[in-house]
């Protein structure tokens, strides 16, 4: 049973969340916070517990331990009242096969509050969705658009989005980006679960990375970048090998006079000074991407997969 943590600055506050399905421990001490008015990215591979966390936040599942607060309330006991202020887009959208998309949107919006036909029309137009088609005739992307339009047309303070763009084409992803920026500008909060790094990097203020039901990394994008290494490639005529022994330099290789290495962010000034002293002909430094962060946490699994060891 979860206990309520009250913090008005936080739209979502989760500490030490646990959930078991029989003998399977789906969540084992997950921490996550979504500050009010910000977009929080929620990254993790398939099966890491993202959807389970969202379903606990919606009161569909009951937690087995830890503290969960949703908009200052308990997501299990206060579900109905809280859901007036929350909109949800599931990762796999199931609709009523013999109702149209437009009907489904109206039903979903009205379940949480009142319907503003103007906003519905704007969103339908933005996502280029035909509301008169029966849901069973929709593709996965179009079913997802139905859920997105319903969420964006409602007046929710908090959007819970579970891989909302996994079926959308690039044009629609642009529409999605625009919409999320509007939501944020209106002071609303967003929890965006995803495994698309670029999307989270583009939209999120903060990121939480989970693995096997545990939080492994959490912070603002800037903070997380600080934890990683910048990739440097430079062309130096002579003496490049000396760089390899500098503190904070890793994975040093030279191919055709082109030296590549990773540098701890803290060691960057000293390394750059050393490079400058060697009269480099060119220098390229790439900031760490979220993808690199992600790979750092899942690198062992990826290596295991490459070795043919499938779980």
């Amino acid at each position, binding site marked *: 049973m979860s206990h309520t943590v009250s913090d008005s600055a936080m739209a979502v506050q989760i500490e030490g969340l646990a959930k078991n399905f029989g003998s399977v421990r789906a969540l084992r001490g997950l921490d996550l916070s979504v500050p009010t008015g910000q977009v929080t990215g929620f990254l993790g591979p398939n099966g890491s517990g993202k959807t389970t966390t969202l379903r606990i936040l919606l009161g569909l599942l009951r937690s087995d331990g830890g503290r969960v607060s949703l908009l200052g309330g308990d997501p299990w006991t206060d*579900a109905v009242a809280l*859901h007036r202020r929350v909109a949800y887009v*599931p990762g796999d959208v*199931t609709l*009523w096969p013999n109702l149209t998309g*437009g009907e489904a949107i109206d039903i979903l919006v009205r379940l949480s509050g009142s319907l503003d036909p103007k906003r519905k029309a704007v969103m339908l137009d933005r996502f280029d969705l035909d509301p008169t088609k029966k849901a*069973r005739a929709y593709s996965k992307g179009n079913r997802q658009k139905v859920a997105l339009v319903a969420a964006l047309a409602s007046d929710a303070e908090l959007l819970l989005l579970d891989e909302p763009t996994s079926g959308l084409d690039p044009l629609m992803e642009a529409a999605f980006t625009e919409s999320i920026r509007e939501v944020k500008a209106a002071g609303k909060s967003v929890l965006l679960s995803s495994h698309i790094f670029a999307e989270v990097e583009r939209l999120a203020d903060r990121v939480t990375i989970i693995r096997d039901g545990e939080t492994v990394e959490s912070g603002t994008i800037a903070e997380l970048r600080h934890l990683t290494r910048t990739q440097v490639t430079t062309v130096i005529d002579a003496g490049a090998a000396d760089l390899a022994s500098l503190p904070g330099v890793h994975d040093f290789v030279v191919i055709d006079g082109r030296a590549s290495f990773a540098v701890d962010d803290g060691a960057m000034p000293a390394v750059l000074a050393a490079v400058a002293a060697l009269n480099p002909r060119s220098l390229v430094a790439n900031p760490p991407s979220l993808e690199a962060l992600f790979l750092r946490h899942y690198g062992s699994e990826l290596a295991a997969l490459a070795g043919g060891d499938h779980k």
Partner: protein
Amino acid sequence: MTALLPATAVDAPVGTGRQFDALAGVGTMVRLIVRRNRVRLAVWVVVLVGMFSYIASYYQTLFPTQQSLDDFAAVSNTPGIKALTGLSAAADTLGGAVWTKGWMTIAVSLAIGAAFLVTRAGRADEEAGRTELLRSRMLGLHSYATASWIVNGLLCLVVGAGIALASLASGLDPRGTGITGSLIFGASVAGVGLVGLGVGAVAGQVASTSRGANALASAVIVGFYVLRMVADLGNGALSWVSPIGWGQQMEPYAGNRWWPLALLVALTVALLAVAGLIETRRDHGSGLLAERPGPADAPRRLASPAGLGLRLQRGPMIGWTIAIVVSAMLFGSIVETMNTFLTDAGGPMTTLTRGVGINALLALLAGMIGLIAAVFATQSAVSLRTDEASGIVEAQLAGALSRTRWALERLLLPAIGSAVVLGLGGGLLGAVYGSTTGDPSQAVTMAGAAVAYWPAVMILVGIAVALLGWFPSVAIPVTWGALAAMWFATMLGEVFGLPTWLLDALPFSAVPYMPLEAMSWGPVAILTAVAGGLIWTGIFRFTRRDIRPG
């Protein structure tokens, strides 16, 4: 897409061409269907053949002498027996007694089973998108359907053969008639089963959802049953309108006719040909009716669970209402025929006073309407779990809607709906019967007799809700199993030696048998309380557990 490909890529010869036969891959599909349904197929064979064997051996010990068989034949010659199961043309033989008890149940069960198994491998897989994956491989257009017809056709043949063998083993053929009766019995069951297969095949092509296909197939088979019921109570001419009637006309152990089997097989072949033709003409994933654009907006009432449920279930609800109205009017119109029959006929009927005989028949027909209403209510009540399993309830519960309100509103549909169809069915039955005797008050009497079954119907709704709460993963099959078990216990309970107190306590037996019996509030109050308790415990648990899709 095609426009981007050079024409030669489309027209290029691939392989021998034979691989693109409409029947390529049938063998693989047969193995797939057997693998997916091995338990179901085995259960159907064991239950149906076992039921036959059990009735045969029980009746052997129950009726050791010809005198006891003659007595039983006399007792069986009632409108009730004729209406429910039909009466064997050789009712005074052991085989005839077994036929009267078991043939109708076994044959109709096999027909419905074959129809459901065909839609399961056909429309249900197509709806789920599995067939698309299969068809992307080297699989002919008709291969999957044909494989399913082969497997289910074999099921019918195996059940028929098993019954013929069991009949031979029990020596049911009357002395001096050889083994023809046993073979005819098995063949008539298999033949009716095959027609069910054909009906399922066509229903799966016409309807665009598996639920719709099953509903359509059941409605057609129930229609066949009602037609033959009217025929068996009337002059018999209608018997030739119903394939189930053809099966009856094969008259095992009596007339021993083979030729109606040719009608059954011919109808099956015709139905399969129609199904194949539709499959050739239509697009994958679609039904016969093209998808039309619908409204872009929903009225406010759809946001309430009851309003949405009503909208989503309106097709089945209209279907069930029509079924009840048609059945009730047919029932009502035959009662007067029976009246004449009862006056004219001699034999055991004279021992019953005319009034009691008619009232017994009316009470039986009211019970039949109660049973149809129970199927409707069960279908509506299990949809709560269906919605949870498909994941669709999450979208609603993510809104400002409590689980209790969602469940209670949805339960208004079976609760109010069954009360309405009971009153409507009973009232129409009484009105049609009353119009033939100039007694309009029959409408009210019979409406009351049918509505008295409402608490019994709600027990099934209660079972569905209790299972939804406590055992969601098995809730749907067990709820339907409970309905089937009640039906079988009522029909065959005494054969299986179930104690009388248990049979009397079954919801449908506990209801006062009006108009034969007087209204009694005790059982009705108890049934209502039990139904309420079941619903309460189900919702109690449902609001406290995880939502579990799949």
